[in-house]
């Protein structure tokens, strides 16, 4: 059984984002990059599934991490290998900002088809673009069923024949306002994972050491399709919707000002 996890590399959360001089994208030169957090949860879910299947007596479960991006994306794949992925695929593309979701999902679809996995997991959205649709588009391109906002994945064993690898899964997905739902579907399938369904592991020293001997295959991305269907024309700092009064001074001075507001304006004291 093969489980593929599509991960993305994004600027770290506290990064100071600066708009590029032409105003069409950000200046990427001084940024540090990390794995997109929802994708880290997707990898964790894949590793836990593998461990559960191993415990149930199934051997040969393989977790493959795949990432499209420039050279720097290799570090995110190395982290995935150190955490326990068995091998990695790096789709080398230096022009991700020029590709729309459909084009990017197309690159992933090509890599996935070559592996024919049973299950594909990815995060529900990225912390940079936040389009929240790469997974669903990928499922549509592969013509397999999908579920989004998944918190937990359970494989459904054939009761009469538990030694056979499962062909169906049941997932718990999050709905709005504190509601949940179970969905059953056949494999192969694609799931987008919501954060918080599992607890992220850290790479161990042993894992980091082992990662060095694991395979990362580099494949060149096909040329970008021009024009794209949608494109960000201009990126810019948002204008303030509200006039914010910034309070300044020492901690004690600021506290005194807030208490004043709470007493006389908000009237909660």
């Amino acid at each position, binding site marked *: 059984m093969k489980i593929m996890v599509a991960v993305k590399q994004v600027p770290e959360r506290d990064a100071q984002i600066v708009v590029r001089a032409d105003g069409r994208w950000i200046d990427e030169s001084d940024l540090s990059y990390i794995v997109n957090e929802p994708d880290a949860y997707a990898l964790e879910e894949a590793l836990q599934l593998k461990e559960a299947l191993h415990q149930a007596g199934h051997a040969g479960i393989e977790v493959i991490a795949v990432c499209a991006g420039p050279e720097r994306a290799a570090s995110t794949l190395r982290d995935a290998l150190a955490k326990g992925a068995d091998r990695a695929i790096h789709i080398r593309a230096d022009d991700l900002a020029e590709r729309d979701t459909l084009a990017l999902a197309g690159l992933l679809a090509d890599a996935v088809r070559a592996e024919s996995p049973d299950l594909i997991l990815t995060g529900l959205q990225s912390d940079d673009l936040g389009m929240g649709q790469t997974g669903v588009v990928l499922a549509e391109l592969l013509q397999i069923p999908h579920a989004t906002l998944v918190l937990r994945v359970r494989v459904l064993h054939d009761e009469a024949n538990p030694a056979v690898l499962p062909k169906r899964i049941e997932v718990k997905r999050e709905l709005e306002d*504190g509601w949940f739902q179970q969905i059953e579907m056949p494999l192969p399938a694609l799931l987008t994972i919501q954060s918080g369904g599992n607890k992220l592991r850290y790479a161990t020293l042993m894992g980091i050491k082992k990662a060095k001997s694991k395979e990362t295959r580099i494949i060149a991305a096909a040329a970008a399709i021009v024009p794209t269907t949608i494109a960000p024309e201009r990126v810019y*700092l948002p204008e303030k919707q509200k006039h914010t009064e910034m309070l300044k001074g020492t901690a004690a001075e600021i506290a005194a000002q807030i208490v004043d507001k709470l007493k006389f304006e908000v009237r909660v004291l």
Partner: protein
Amino acid sequence: MSGVLVVVEQRDGAVTRLSLEALAAGQRLAKLLGIDCSAVALGEGIAPVVLGELSGNHLAKVLAVEHPLLRQYTADGLVHALEQVVKHAAPAYVVFPHSYQVRDFAPALATRFGQVLIPDVIAILEGPGGPIFVRQLFQGKLNADYRKTGDGPCFVSVQAGSFRMEALEAGTAPVEAVAIELTPEQIRTTPSAPFRETAQTVDLTSSPVIVSVGRGIREQENIPLVQELADALGAELAASRPICDAGWLPMERQVGSSGETVSPKLYLAVGISGAIQHLVGMRGSKTVIAINKDENAPIFEVADYGVAGDLFEIVPALTKAILAAKG
């Protein structure tokens, strides 16, 4: 191709608020372009109330799509159904509410037309070569103007609270039934009925004062710092999603699109940067005070009073000052 088609959702026999906001966005877009706006509702046995609610608006048509296989939501069911509806109505723009359900199927629908959904739109502006759709990037740190560049219908979903349902223009629209074909084999997933996990032990929505904590608190060991502030204020303690994901506070204390929507008298945000998913859950608050180390954090976009500083210095000082003020 012409016109704007708004896909509306229903819950408990009524059109959802978010769908009415999407309808307002659709009317605005249609006006900008000088074209018609229509709405479509899908389901089995769509309540007359829903159709009545829709046809009372300034719309060219209200399309009603009924099929037994649309009784319960499945992505496959809606993609197949809407693919036929979009081919039939041939709109230039398809507008959705940005709900969890839409996030689940609309990207696949757009893919069938060789398009990419422009999700989470917060404003629609008039541009020189056609409408501009504004959405946020980098968790609200930046805005981006998107424009449709290819041929074919353009799919757009609008963020909660970005368009006012009060702006809906009234009118009378005819209801037209649209027949679609759908077979059980086309639906590959089997959904269960929705359920709730456990009985709620806290009701954030009824609390007049909320102290809310985010990633800036850094470690679980630091949570008591904000708990003491909440206690001093007689407030409920809430959190942004990452805090609940980490298990530092229970999920039921989460404010945002995947948690509670609150509108207290005072919302005191501590170490919360203010991603859109959080803001939609709290921007109805009467007064917002935010403490965050990054002066460019989007939470300051919606705050009345802001403190750009170290919460580990300010919060204890504030707790002390509040206790002193209360005597």
